[in-house]
């Protein structure tokens, strides 16, 4: 970005330098750095415990579930899609995993854990595949497809459990995947880090990943460029549901039970994390790192509000407001970017 590219944006004059710098960072990186900085500052000043080691590690572990959900959402958003069924995937994944583990528990904990996780994972993949088929091959708008899917799946989850939690999971399941540590790091954090590395390779270094952006950027142009847009779209929903499935399994292990009412907040929270992280809801734009930071930011805010003992209903108000603010700020950013354009 050179200094003389922006007609209409006042530059150069000495007192304006700080303002210019702020503008530049904002245009480059979006609203997120400012959100994060103000959040950390505010919480460090107003609470005693925010910057303590134990609180940080709690935040990191808590953040993993949302990070994974946000990454899953990002993949779909990149293709101009939307996944509102992400929450019910958590619920159904959790229920199926638990029921399968309970049913196979006579075979011993190892077999039960493996079969249960396999069943839960498969369930999420089937839901994702159904979304993908509807969106890619039957041209159902993603909004409608995944909204309907969330109704279907949620109904099935409640029907199959009667709304009561499924208990009796093998002790080792929670011991390892919920509370376990490896080299002093929580297992969910390690799993999440591994997934992030893979997703990074996928979106930045594979052809299929590049096609995500292309399809979201212009589906018609992608098709004329020889890309099988339908198949790629379908696969996006499958891969995305796989990532959600991993998160669902980790959360089930943490809760030590199968719950048909978990995950309700994830559609909104994952979209909020993406939007705050600069993912375009119109497709084609989004960076993995920023989405992760977006998710971390939301967890920060929640954690801070808990430390400040803010009413949980008011927390919902705050998250909603932040989502809107992020979108408004991003629109303004794009306008500045178009003017500075370099």
């Amino acid at each position: 970005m050179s200094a003389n590219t922006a007609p209409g944006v006042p530059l150069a004059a000495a007192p304006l330098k700080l303002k210019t710098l702020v503008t530049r960072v904002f245009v480059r990186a979006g609203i997120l750095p400012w959100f994060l900085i103000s959040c950390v500052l505010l919480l460090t000043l107003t609470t005693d415990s925010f910057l303590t080691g134990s609180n940080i590690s709690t935040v990191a572990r808590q953040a993993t579930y949302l990070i994974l959900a946000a990454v899953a959402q990002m993949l779909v958003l990149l293709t101009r899609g939307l996944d509102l069924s992400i929450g019910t995937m958590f619920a159904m994944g959790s229920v199926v995993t638990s029921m399968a583990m309970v049913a196979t528990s006579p075979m011993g904990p190892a077999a039960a854990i493996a079969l249960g996780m396999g069943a839960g994972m498969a369930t999420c993949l089937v839901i994702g595949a159904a979304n993908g088929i509807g969106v890619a091959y039957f041209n159902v708008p993603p909004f409608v497809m995944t909204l309907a899917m969330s109704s279907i799946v949620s109904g099935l989850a409640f029907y199959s459990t009667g709304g009561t939690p499924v208990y009796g999971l093998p002790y080792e399941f929670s011991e390892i995947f919920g509370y376990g540590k490896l080299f002093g790091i929580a297992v969910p954090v390690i799993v999440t880090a591994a997934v992030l590395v893979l997703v990074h390779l996928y979106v930045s270094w594979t052809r299929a990943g590049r096609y995500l952006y292309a399809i979201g950027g212009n589906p018609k142009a992608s098709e004329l460029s020889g890309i099988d847009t339908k198949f790629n779209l379908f696969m996006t929903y499958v891969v995305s549901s796989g990532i959600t499935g991993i998160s669902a399994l980790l959360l089930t292990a943490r809760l030590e039970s199968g719950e048909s009412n978990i995950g309700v907040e994830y559609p909104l929270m994952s979209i909020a994390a993406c939007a705050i992280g600069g993912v375009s809801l119109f497709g084609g734009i989004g960076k993995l790192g920023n989405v992760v930071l977006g998710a971390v930011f939301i967890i920060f805010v929640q954690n801070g509000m808990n430390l400040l003992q803010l009413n949980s209903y008011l927390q919902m108000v705050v998250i909603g407001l932040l989502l809107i603010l992020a979108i408004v700020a991003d629109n303004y950013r794009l306008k500045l970017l178009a003017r500075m354009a370099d």
Partner: protein
Amino acid sequence: MAQIVEPGDTARAAPRPPSSLEPHGPVDPAHAGAPLLRLEGITKRYPGTLALDSVDFDVRPGEVHVLFGENGAGKSTLIQTIAGVHRPSSGRIFLRGREVTLESVRHARTLGISAVFQEFSIVPQMTVEENLFLGDEPRRGGMLDKRAVRRMATEVLDRLGFELRPGQHALYLSRAEQQMVEIAKAFCTRPSVVILDEPTASLTERETERLFELIEQLKSEGIGIVYITHRMSEIQRIGDRITVLRDGRYIETLPVAGTTQERLVALMTGRVVDQIFPQIRSDPGEELLRLDGICASSGSETVLEDVSIRVRAGEVVGIAGLVGSGKSEIGRAAFGILRPDRGSIQLRGETVFDADAGIDRLGPRAMLDRGLIYVPPDRREEGLAMVLPARENMSLAALDLPGFSRGGLLRRSAEKRDVSAVAKRLALSPMNIERRAEHFSGGNQQKVLIGKALLRIGAQPEDARGRVVIFDEPTVGVDIGARMLIYRAMRDLCEAGAGVVLISSDLPEILHLAHRSYVMHRARLRADLPACETTEETVLSHFFDPETD
């Protein structure tokens, strides 16, 4: 009402029939025959650019005054100034001899200046009549006066001779009918000056004919028309005078009669034709592409009727015709994005489509693999992902080639190197391949689109041998510099042994670049002309219906 007669121009002296199409307001007798509208030294400055630099312009009653120039020459800015969209930075506007300040589009309208812009302002969910009076609805006691709307809408449509039902929803109208609604909208206020911005761009030839009849009628009623077009044939057909703009500056005003196309192109571009169009050596080799008896339809409309064409290696084949004549569909059928109903297509001897033998179209992926590349006409719609960087756009169709990926993994440094090389060849400006496509100018966006095809073909000249590259309107909305580079890229492809197909509405392009030309007319192949017969007259003679038709 004083008769409006241009001194020394008896052709315009036809007495005006008494009609309700009275131009707005009386003409000051002292100014009869003087310009209806006169602009003096109009300058429009935007931050960083001078869009109009002291331009003079006038419109006389009963004439069609053509505004001519390249994209970015300032035509749009000028008509927006006349229509009241924005005010000039300096300069004066006179309407019937009186100086006026145009406050807004609405104000210009009440003064009798109406514009029909290229972009439609129709709300599809509303009816024709609702659209006509949108923003200016007749009311009675605070409520919409629906009966008045119907009466006034019927009146204006009858007057213009448009066969549109006022109660019809705009959604179901064809593009031409929508255009008619736009025109009718301009006439709701009884204008004396009408601005038409490329009105035929989306019309079929029959509809174009209807529009020309309407324009003749308006002229006979003493209305002054400002007409923007890029088509030489239209200028010859309906223009009286022509004003050429270049880079925001006034160049010259000439009578249409007696002005040659070469002169216009030279005035428009500031260069002579030979500098714009490169000489392309033709060395026709083996036959690469062959369409036989192709028939195709889109909905209930026939878009191709028994079309057969041949493309050989080492030649540029032009396909001319009006919009809607089916010329674009030839390219789309060859690329496998339009499924013909009948006929067969062969690419380098291989049958890639045959309706009788039950061989279905292969689609873009397979055609690209077989060496046929189609460059779509609308870069925004089908060509580029605007939010992605130029680099990702340019490499998109080539990513599955071994040079760009291996086993599904991208080779990003190779990608960057090859994209940079092509960007340099096309003189992308600014030379920043990480910049988003949407932030480039139109001409440079087009370079990105052309670069995309070049990358698919490969960097080496010998990679082009035996390929078929179909350019569909490659220079629409492109400045002269970009145009020259695009032509040079086409020359390089052809001389390296590719078969180049140039589908274009720009006649000079076909005349100067193609070695052989086909002319499409109403979904049929009208003519197959060798280079020596490809002149403006012969091509144009096939554009329209014969006089006796």
